[in-house]
């Protein structure tokens, strides 16, 4: 059940109406049932796997809190291993098998290692990390174990963020599931506005960009360097708009019910450094890795070389989390190297000058480097990624013929000119609005977010924009595959 489908609209209306109609003590039960229904809309049988992991983590959380000494650590390990085992079996088994086969091939052995392909349960990577953050926080004593199995289940599978985040922390979400959320008009208006903005980002910006990106990247061998460059830039826009749009819709849906989820994106493409980019991009995931991988490894409070190793390990795992392919791992390593570069050259004045020209320059450098990283993310294989980079670097020409040929990939006729212009215009509108949010006056922002009139008008404009300019045939969100 995609967020951008009529089925979900009906589901959301029914669930939200019942939510406020029921006494508050029944609401979590309704949300749990709705979340189960939402999850089972994909592959019903997988709910048993989800509930098994939920049960293990629920029990281990209580056992950790009740135990002392080494037993706590053992229970933590049981929880982590069992949760990660499910993730490994469903997501990484085939990848592991293929890697072993490749190694067998390199060593001249018989490539007979079995490869098992299993359909990935939806949202597995996300709710796995959400469960892990719960048991780790209980272990660290920062969170009391949840005694109510139903509430804990709802924490893991709360439907707005079940499939693609934000990856919530128990301190933020758990207590909200108990709270009596009175209906507030401002929550409704804000929530609907966020949903509308998320749909605009997804259906208008991301899905339009996807048409071009898929056409070019799926037939990259026949494309010019310029077309591949356009596609890479558009993929950077697509992945941001797709994921930020999903997060926005998730946050908006929860907000309507009075539940506040964490912000997941904070205008990452306005970053003036790589570290700033990772503080603004997929915030729930990057903070998860910071708190549960990077800092336990020692973080940056170790020697310089150890710090760099920690960065590489963290980002390699981050890359692997995104997908079972070496291109994702290399993407992670690439981003780790960018941070190492930045850390190393900080002393050489990387953050200066701090004036507008300096910030624009650094912003461009960050954007270009991040965009090139997306090639690894999008390409089907390392070979394809390298070939695409090579073609962009050596075969990009800005002649009229070349630009015309690149634009022609939008459609098979001369409407490609109109589609290209409209798409770039809409992307400019999105980033202009974000620029306004980033640098706009504090008063103006507050006025907007507290004014029913302005949010009402903006929501209508966004819904109309989706109807007129969106791709109305539902396209899956990119992060569903993770």
């Amino acid at each position, binding site marked *: 059940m995609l967020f951008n489908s009529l089925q979900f609209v009906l589901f959301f209306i029914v669930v939200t109406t019942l939510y406020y109609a029921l006494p508050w003590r029944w609401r979590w039960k309704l949300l749990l049932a709705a979340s189960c229904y939402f999850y089972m809309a994909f592959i019903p049988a997988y709910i048993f796997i989800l509930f098994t992991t939920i049960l293990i983590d629920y029990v281990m959380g209580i056992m950790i809190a009740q135990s002392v000494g080494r037993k706590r650590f053992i229970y933590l390990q049981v929880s982590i291993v069992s949760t990660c085992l499910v993730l490994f079996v469903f997501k990484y088994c085939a990848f592991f098998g293929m890697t072993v086969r490749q190694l067998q091939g390199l060593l001249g052995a018989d490539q007979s290692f079995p490869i098992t392909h299993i359909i990935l349960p939806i949202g597995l990577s996300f709710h796995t990390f959400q469960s892990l953050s719960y048991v780790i926080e209980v272990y660290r004593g920062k969170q009391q174990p949840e005694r109510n199995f139903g509430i804990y289940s709802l924490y893991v599978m709360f439907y707005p963020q079940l499939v693609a985040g934000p990856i919530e922390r128990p301190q933020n979400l758990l207590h909200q599931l108990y709270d009596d959320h009175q209906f507030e008009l401002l929550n*409704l208006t804000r929530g609907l506005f966020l949903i509308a903005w998320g749909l605009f980002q997804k259906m208008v910006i991301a899905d339009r960009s996807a048409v071009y990106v898929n056409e070019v990247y799926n037939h990259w061998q026949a494309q010019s360097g310029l077309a591949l460059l356009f596609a890479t830039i558009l993929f950077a826009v697509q992945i941001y708009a797709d994921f930020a749009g999903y997060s926005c819709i998730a946050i908006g849906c929860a907000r309507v019910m009075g539940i506040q989820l964490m912000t997941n994106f904070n205008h990452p493409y306005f970053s003036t450094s790589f570290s700033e980019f990772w503080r603004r991009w997929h915030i729930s995931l990057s903070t998860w890795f910071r708190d549960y991988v990077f800092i336990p490894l020692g973080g940056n409070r170790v020697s310089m070389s150890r710090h760099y190793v920690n960065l590489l390990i963290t980002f390699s795992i981050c890359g692997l989390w995104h997908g079972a392919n070496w291109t994702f791992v290399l993407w992670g390593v690439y981003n780790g190297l960018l941070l190492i570069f930045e850390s190393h050259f900080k002393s050489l004045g990387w953050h200066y000058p701090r004036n507008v020209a300096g910030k624009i320059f650094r912003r461009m450098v960050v954007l270009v480097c991040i965009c090139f990283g997306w090639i690894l993310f999008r390409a089907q294989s390392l070979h394809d990624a390298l070939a695409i980079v090579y073609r962009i670097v050596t075969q990009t020409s800005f002649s009229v013929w070349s630009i015309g040929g690149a634009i022609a990939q939008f459609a098979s006729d*001369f409407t490609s000119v109109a589609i290209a212009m409209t798409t770039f215009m809409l992307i400019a509108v999105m980033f202009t609005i974000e620029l306004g949010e980033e640098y706009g006056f504090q008063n103006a922002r507050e006025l907007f977010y507290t004014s029913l009139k302005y949010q009402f008008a903006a929501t209508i404009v966004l819904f109309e924009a989706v109807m007129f300019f969106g791709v109305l045939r539902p396209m899956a969100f990119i992060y569903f595959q993770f």
Partner: protein
Amino acid sequence: MSQSKKNESVARHGWLYIGKLAISTVVILLCLVTVKFYTEHRLALKNCGLAGVLSQPRLDLVLFGSSHTRKSYDMRLLERATGVTASFQISYNGTDLIATSQMLEYLCASPGHCPHYAVIEAYSEKLTRIPTLEDPRYFFDAPPSLKWTIIRSYLSGHRYSSALLDIFDLVVNRGNDEIVTYPFYSPIAERNSYKGGRTDFYFSGLSPEEFRKLKLVLDSNVPDPAQLSAVYNIIEVARSHNIEVIFIDPPMPQPVSSEPDIQALKKEFSRILSARHCIFIDGDHGFPIDDPSLFEDNNHVSSKGREEFTRRISVVLKDWMASHPVVGQGS
């Protein structure tokens, strides 16, 4: 006010807000869509498609078809070879016989736009095709009355619920890019068309290996009743308006043309037309369909093939027009 009454009041405000939001969105949508429905055809390109043909002061020869027609006929070459300058080509992607029938009827009903001669694309695979609307530009270019015809035809041929969604998509969502970018888009697009045909793109031929691997998979080899009905209607409309009509199947590469299903369809098409005393020209005959350089893919000619085919078919068309002079038809 008690807490529960207060909550009720707040909830009522919430429903009011949602109601106002929904109604405002729908009303604005309806207003914009109505304006769009009745005016967008005025922004259609004037040297191709329906708008192009309707802006011609005189129409002697009109070619109706799809991408096969667009890629098979060089209009400048055709004019020079046949001597017919009042010619035009209407070729939207995927145009089937039903759409052709609609367009021909519309032209005949429009004063001064009934052609003397009509060349109908008789691409044999179209006979089996499930009616659909592949190119939304056809709808965009169509004047309002033709738009209603298209909608009625689509609704009658498809499952109602999914057809409604398709119509919504077509009416609301398509063509907006062209509207928004009209001042920039139309000069570029119109510069690259001539009498409905494209002049800018070059389509290269195939290598021998690519040519050998060509296949065309048909969804069915049974003529679709709606398409058949459209053929009869085209003939009927042409006869009632004194239009001389000829059906031409553009050439196909030999590996595809020799497939038994394709041959069977060509024979069937020919049989249907000759039973109604209509001329059917198989573009394969006399055309070097075993030359890879003349084909772009499994069912379109290359730019070189277009030149070759236009040169050959011009002779046929010239003789046909000479032997079928049109008398007593106002145009």
